[in-house]
């Protein structure tokens, strides 16, 4: 085995020692610089926030299905409650669930293991990143307790509503929301710097650019996208905070400002953000698909180039959120064009994944079911986006439940389906034990079936003109026509079923951490480097020395070999 010191990149001050005294409980789990602990911290915080996001959606969907009745666990949902719940659900699910779990948790856990190094290059920045993130989550949750309650101006926080207390009636909540979001961005900026630097500098000897697993590439591209797009929004957030607290008028027309400016700043970040969380999800699916179909990834470089292409194009589509916002109508022509064009690289990734299945030897284990479901469900999310990107039909669909169903068909697969694929796939590595396949499959079907029964009715409601963020439709006779309330009830009941089945997952996950059957080092017979490390990997990851890399990550079923896999670190 080779010595660590052979590669100069690995020798620097911050690097934690592989052989040192075992620290105490607190230092090990709460003050650690180990990338796996920090990844787990992000993961469990993300899970806890997912419960918050799930509870808020439960409360407001119950109000929609049974308006005015007391909701078990919450009470009567008032108009201001409803707005706060909707706002919190959206903000939490995107900023405190999808981002931390997909990028921070999986990025932290997987990157050093998959590129074959012992830790991130900036472990202390990494620890700081999580701590800021935790504070941001607490600030957001704390806003429920202040005078006026949590902010209720939607996760997009459009001024003037968000800028003035006399409009939003949540003087403290609005500022706390902004502060929480800004802190969270700082946390991810720190994390992003770490990811990019680590992958560029600390890869195992022999790992060339095209030997990097797709999921690592995707997290890197996503981090770069995030870092490049977040600047305008942070600037906007500071301006909005001044408008709220110092009486400035950046977004106030009476003082020479313009409310639409915020929308440009927000969506200039907000649309790349969609791809920031989408790309890592696609990366996870690539890993799981290849392992469980025993196939080489179809056209590795094409996947990489389409991901980069998607990332670049994503900076030129933001105004499709603003077709009817009062921008110059001629702009819609340009942004319709770019928006429909971005469907090409995304569709191409889909084609590549479907082509990867051809000729495979597909094993329908739980992670594979999730990966296939990701493609199947995301397809619907993708194609319904065409209705919204095309300016003419967006006039009708904008701000209806059709939009809502569309982006849930993209975000749910991204933030949950792909994450379940990842967690079930890498669980044996993370904890050295196996999860129950039976419970896994029960949870799978108990999630996928209700998911479709939630959002397909919402497509129909949107097509019938139901507009968003309304806590009680009884004031709108055209939204109370025959059958429409039944669709709302169907969606809500399906949601309750879906939430109930998540208990199965939590039991399976936490029971298996402690009592699951012991897992071998490489239970799925996969190629990538994380499976070379012991399960769970110790501090420093590779006790027998860092691996050497000889080939790409997807050499499955190579014709020259009897074995149907060929680990990246195996010489010969």
């Amino acid at each position: 085995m080779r010595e660590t010191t052979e590669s100069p990149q690995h020798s620097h001050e911050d690097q934690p020692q592989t052989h040192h005294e075992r620290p105490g409980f607190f230092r090990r789990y709460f003050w650690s610089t180990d990338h796996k602990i920090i990844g787990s911290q992000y993961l469990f915080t993300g899970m806890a926030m997912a419960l918050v996001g799930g509870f808020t959606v439960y409360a407001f969907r119950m109000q929609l299905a049974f308006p005015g009745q007391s909701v078990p666990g919450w009470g009567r949902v008032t108009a201001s409650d409803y707005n706060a719940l909707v706002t919190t659900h959206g903000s939490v699910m995107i900023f405190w669930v999808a981002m931390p779990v997909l990028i921070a948790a999986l990025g932290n856990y997987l990157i050093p293991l998959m590129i074959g190094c012992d830790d991130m290059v900036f472990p202390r920045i990494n620890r700081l990143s999580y701590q800021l993130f935790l504070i941001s989550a607490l600030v957001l949750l704390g806003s429920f307790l202040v005078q006026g309650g949590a902010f209720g101006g939607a996760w997009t926080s459009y001024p003037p509503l968000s800028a003035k207390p006399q409009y939003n009636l949540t003087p403290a909540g609005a500022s706390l929301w902004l502060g929480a979001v800004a802190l969270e961005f700082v946390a991810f900026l720190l994390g992003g710097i770490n990811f990019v630097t680590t992958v560029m500098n600390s890869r195992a000897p022999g790992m060339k650019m095209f030997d990097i697993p797709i999921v690592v590439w995707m997290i890197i591209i996503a981090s770069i996208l995030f870092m490049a797009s977040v600047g305008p929004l942070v600037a906007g957030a500071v301006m909005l905070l001044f408008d709220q607290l110092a009486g400035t008028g950046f977004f106030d027309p009476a003082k020479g400002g313009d409310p639409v400016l915020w929308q440009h700043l927000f969506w200039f970040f907000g649309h790349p953000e969609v791809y920031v969380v989408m790309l890592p999800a696609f990366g996870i699916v690539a890993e799981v698909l290849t392992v469980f179909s025993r196939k080489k990834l179809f056209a590795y470089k094409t996947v990489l180039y389409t991901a980069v292409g998607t990332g670049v194009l994503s900076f030129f589509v933001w105004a499709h959120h603003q077709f009817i916002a009062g921008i110059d109508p001629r702009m819609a022509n340009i942004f319709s064009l770019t928006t429909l064009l971005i469907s090409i690289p995304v569709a191409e990734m889909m084609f590549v994944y479907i082509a990867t299945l051809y000729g495979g030897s597909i094993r329908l284990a739980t992670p594979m079911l999730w990966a296939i479901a990701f493609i199947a469900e995301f397809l619907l999310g993708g194609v319904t986006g065409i209705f919204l990107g095309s300016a003419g039909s967006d006039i009708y669909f904008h701000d209806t439940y059709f939009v809502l169903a569309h982006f849930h068909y993209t975000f749910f697969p991204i933030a949950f389906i792909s994450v379940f694929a990842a967690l079930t796939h890498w669980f044996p590595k993370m904890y050295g034990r196996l999860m129950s396949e039976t419970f896994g499959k029960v949870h799978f079907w108990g999630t996928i079936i209700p998911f479709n029964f939630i959002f397909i009715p919402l497509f129909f409601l949107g097509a019938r003109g139901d507009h968003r963020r309304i806590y009680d439709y009884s004031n709108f006779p055209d939204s109370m026509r025959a059958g429409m309330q039944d669709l709302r009830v169907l969606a809500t009941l399906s949601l309750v079923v879906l939430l109930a089945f998540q208990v199965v997952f939590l039991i399976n996950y936490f029971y298996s951490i402690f009592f699951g059957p012991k897992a071998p080092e490489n239970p799925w017979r996969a190629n990538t480097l994380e499976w070379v490390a012991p399960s769970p990997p110790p501090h420093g990851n590779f006790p027998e020395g860092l691996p050497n890399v000889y080939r790409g990550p997807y050499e499955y079923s190579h014709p020259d070999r009897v074995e149907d896999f060929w680990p990246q670190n195996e010489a010969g």
Partner: protein
Amino acid sequence: MISKYVESASSYAPDVDALILVIALVVGFWFLVAEVVLLGLVFRFTEREGVKAKYVSGEDHREKRWVSLPHFATLFFDVLIIVGALRVWSEVKMNMPQADETVRVIAQQWAWTFVHPGPDGKLDTPDDIRTIDELHVEKGKTYHFELTSRDVLHSFSVPVFRLKQDAVPGRIIKGWFRPTLTGQFDIQCVEICGIGHALMPGRIVIEDSDAHAAWLLANTPLTARAPTSPGGQP
């Protein structure tokens, strides 16, 4: 497709519906094809005893056709949809025909104020008719609207017209419609505007010319009525 559920009541609503139908047919067809291929491959290539997976890199030009042909198909249909989308967009939002009358729509937390030009057909004259939450228009006439807001963002949406436009404080945004069907329909505010967002329902009342004239007569402010009109004594 949409008009089966939501009446189509403006001159451009059928075109918006047609665009939606075209997109639905195109993407619906390819969506089904993709799902069938995906699930078909999963069933066809489920693991079998003694069968090893194929080794396909996908880097070869011949293999890449499996991705590049659908790629060009996507491009072709994208262009098709863009052409349709922009034609409809320019009809609804860019090329405004000559107006017969102009109405003013003012949004605020949480009500709509509509200013009708009154019998003389001109805004800002003493016979203007102001109403709250109820807009009266005549079938077949071409209307321009001037949309503004007094406080936060709102959005003026008339689903039966397939029309939607945000109201921005400090700006007057113009648009147009020509009603083609009589009846009463919802006007929605579709931009979140505070805790009363759900309490901002408006109604649009589309009447034929007789009914509209009667409504005008009954609602013209007394001070603005012509002195010679029948029963003109105060």
